[in-house]
């Protein structure tokens, strides 16, 4: 199996501070990988190492099987990158910057550029100093999507976009995904990650705390159940994997570990179920669980 992106035991220190602590993760070909974590967790640092802008202290990263530091230029010919904090040259126009970025990769598709400018509703004749954060982000997005890259590395690309533009962005990503391109998406907008990503990695305080498909991750968490029955439900607390049983107006609510769901459902069916609602955990629940982990309180967000 060849990985588009392969990070092995990567550690990055800035002086005494350890920004990334022995992280490993892989992105397969044609996969959309969501990279989430609180502020300051190390998302951008990871991306900068992938781009060869920072030198790994230990371990390393491979992109397309090439070394991210040594073969940076070769790798970058096939990559498109959108930084989280897009800072542009104040005295150049948006159009000029887009052209420069696209030409640096070689192939220049004018039609694509015009189409994207229209989709993102961006005026290319304005100087970058007059652009808002969202508009600067659009410049970087147009330049990225106008290029014919094999891997898109996007660092919180929609943090300044309005909901309409976010929609456009998601369409663009899905289009790339459908044509088999790899996408590495660092994001805070969990609904976006849920909609776009095949697999997710969660980073906290420089460590990867969870990776897997959304289904796999959900498996690890609890499902919220609301139930109403003809007779009072008994013996629920004694069952394995049941937590936080709270009486409600017309029944009970409780949480159950995903892998114990079957036995719990067969237990409550004895009491004549009138109503049964189950809510799968959202990515947000997952995320919050890791945010609120006891040892995360003093650092992180």
């Amino acid at each position: 199996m060849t990985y588009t992106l392969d990070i092995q035991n990567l550690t990055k220190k800035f002086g005494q501070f350890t920004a990334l602590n022995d992280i490993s993760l892989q992105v397969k070909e044609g996969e959309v990988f969501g990279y989430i974590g609180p502020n300051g967790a190390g998302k951008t640092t990871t991306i900068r190492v992938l781009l060869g802008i920072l030198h790994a202290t230990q371990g390393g990263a491979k992109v397309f099987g090439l070394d991210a530091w040594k073969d940076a230029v070769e790798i970058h010919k096939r990559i498109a990158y959108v930084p989280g904090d897009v800072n542009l040259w104040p005295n150049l126009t948006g159009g000029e910057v887009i052209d420069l970025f696209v030409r640096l990769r070689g192939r220049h598709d004018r039609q694509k550029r015009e189409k994207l400018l229209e989709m993102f509703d961006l005026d290319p004749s304005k100087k970058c100093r007059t652009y808002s954060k969202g508009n600067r982000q659009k410049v970087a997005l147009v330049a990225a999507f106008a290029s014919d890259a094999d891997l898109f590395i996007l660092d919180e690309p929609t943090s300044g976009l309005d909901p309409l533009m976010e929609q456009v962005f998601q369409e663009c990503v899905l289009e790339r995904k459908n044509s088999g391109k790899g996408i590495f998406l660092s994001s805070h907008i969990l609904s976006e990650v849920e909609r776009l990503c095949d697999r997710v990695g969660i980073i906290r305080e420089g460590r990867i705390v969870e990776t897997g498909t959304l289904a796999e991750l959900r498996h690890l968490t609890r499902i919220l159940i609301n139930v109403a029955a003809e007779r009072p439900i008994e013996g629920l607390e004694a069952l394995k994997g049941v937590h936080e049983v709270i009486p409600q107006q017309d029944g009970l609510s409780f949480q159950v570990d995903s892998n114990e769901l079957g036995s719990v459902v067969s237990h409550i069916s004895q009491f004549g179920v009138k109503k049964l609602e189950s809510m799968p955990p959202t990515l947000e629940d997952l995320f919050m669980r890791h945010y609120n982990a006891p040892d995360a309180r003093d650092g992180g967000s």
Partner: protein
Amino acid sequence: MKGSFTNTGSLVRFILRRERVVSAVWILALVLFSVGLVPALGEMFGGVESRANLVGMLKNPSMIAMVGPAFGHDEKDIEEFSRHKMTYQAAFPRYTEYFNTFSAQEGGDTDDPVALMARFSIYLDGLNEDDPYKTHMRGFEDYLAAVPFELSYNTGALYTNFMLLWVIITVGIMNIFLIARHTRGDEEKGRGEVVLSLPVGRLSNLNASMITAVIVNTILALLTGLGIAAMGVEGVGFAGSMLYGVALGVSGLFFAAVAALFCQLSSSSRGAISLSVLALGVIYMLRAAGDMNGDMEALSYISPMGLIQRSEIFVENYLWPSLVVLLVSVVITSLAYALNTVRDLGQGFIAARPGRKEASPLLSSPFGLAFRLLRNSVIAWFVGIFAIGAAYGSILGTEAFEGFMETNEFYSQIMGVSADYTATESFVSTIGFIMAFIAIVPVLIAALKLRGEEKEGRTEHMLSRAVSRAGYLSSFTVLAFLSSVLMQCATALGVYSAAAAVLAESPEIGITLGFLLRANLVYLPAIWVMIGVTVLLVGLLPKASGAIWGYYGLSFFLVFIGRLPGLLPEWAQNITPFAFIPQLPMEEITLAPLAVLTALAAVLTAAGFIFYRRRDMLTV
């Protein structure tokens, strides 16, 4: 408008908090430099004789153009002294022989004549006490003792003539940066609106910045004045010392006001700084033109620098020039306040036009980007340097200059210099030296641009694309090298364009365009070393790359002070590459030192590349 200045006090404290390192370093460096040179200069020119020689040097038109007129000496006294001395020296039969021995030791004529003669005096002083010449000249000293006359050129006046203008320029630049940083700079970075969203008045930030400038300049004035007075050197009195400090502080405030004004007019902090520094250059040139030409002395009074010089510090101690400059500063500041209330945040009065929708074909490589980013600055500097060169060139051959030449000839004669070098030639060499130091500024800006891009987080746009680090760094480096050649040509062409007519009429002066080009391009190896040091800093110590400006300032003062023979030990002069540059036409071009400098520049640059390729890109 109501409450325009609300909460200025808190903002002043806030700005002072942010300034505590930068401004403190500026003030400390300036004060140490100003105070430290008082005893050094006083000791150096302790004797009547060396002081008379110095006046001869300061009377040289090139020196007047550079540092302004010398006040506080009675020319008649000095002429009389010199005449007596000349008579005495000439009466010594083997004087010429001694000079020839000295010249042979020096290895031929290797400097400008005035400095050569000054060194010759030191040589004569160093002779054994029982040397026939010393015995002979003792008779002269006896004569001086018997027929005393007042030589009123005191150490303070000498110090002021020599130093004031340079320190004013440095203080001016400090103030321009200070104001631009806290007004336009903050607006550009988006910090301005955070402050404006607080309960502060529209003018509070500008007002707080100006009050900070007042505080900084007051501290500078007090420390400098007290420091100079505390040295207790004879002829450097308390009143004069304090006035010297006041003159510096007031000049600083003037440039703070100028910067505040340009910060309203221009729409970027870089534009505001460029316009302010340009104004500083114009003010400097105005007084040079006025000082050189008696008919146009009004120009020196219009220029605040020229006006401040006419305080005649340590001689007459006039306070009024400082008061006038202070008043003008207040007027300019008010104008800036008025403009600030009517303009919008982030906008200037020079409106932004819509730009190109597509990039030109040139903008398709890192080099294209570097060129595009530096183009306007390079053009502006080229034009500016051409104009300053032309201003100097226009002084050549004017009647006033001829007058100076005569005076100079007189001094040369009494000091025994043969007419090997004309005043014109010595003037041209001095121009070359000053202009080289002006021309390095855009070159270093180009070399440092890369670091600025990195700090702003724009480097990653390039390095995340198919651009190698070496390719990216070399785009800016190549442009720095190219612009060094361009700027040196601009000087030569500028001087030539204004002086061409005069020079063509009098071919005996022997100054052609080819000569001017040679005299200016010969500085290139030293400029390249400066580029090399910059590239090395960017590669190895990116956070300290601004230190190149410290080295630049140090180089200037070492070379400038090095013109005074014997003040600096040789090794101290040699830490700047400029010490190895021959000054045409007084010195000849020898290839070896130039080749060594060029090789050194290449090594430094290459080392910079190696380190740059290895290090992390930083956004701090």
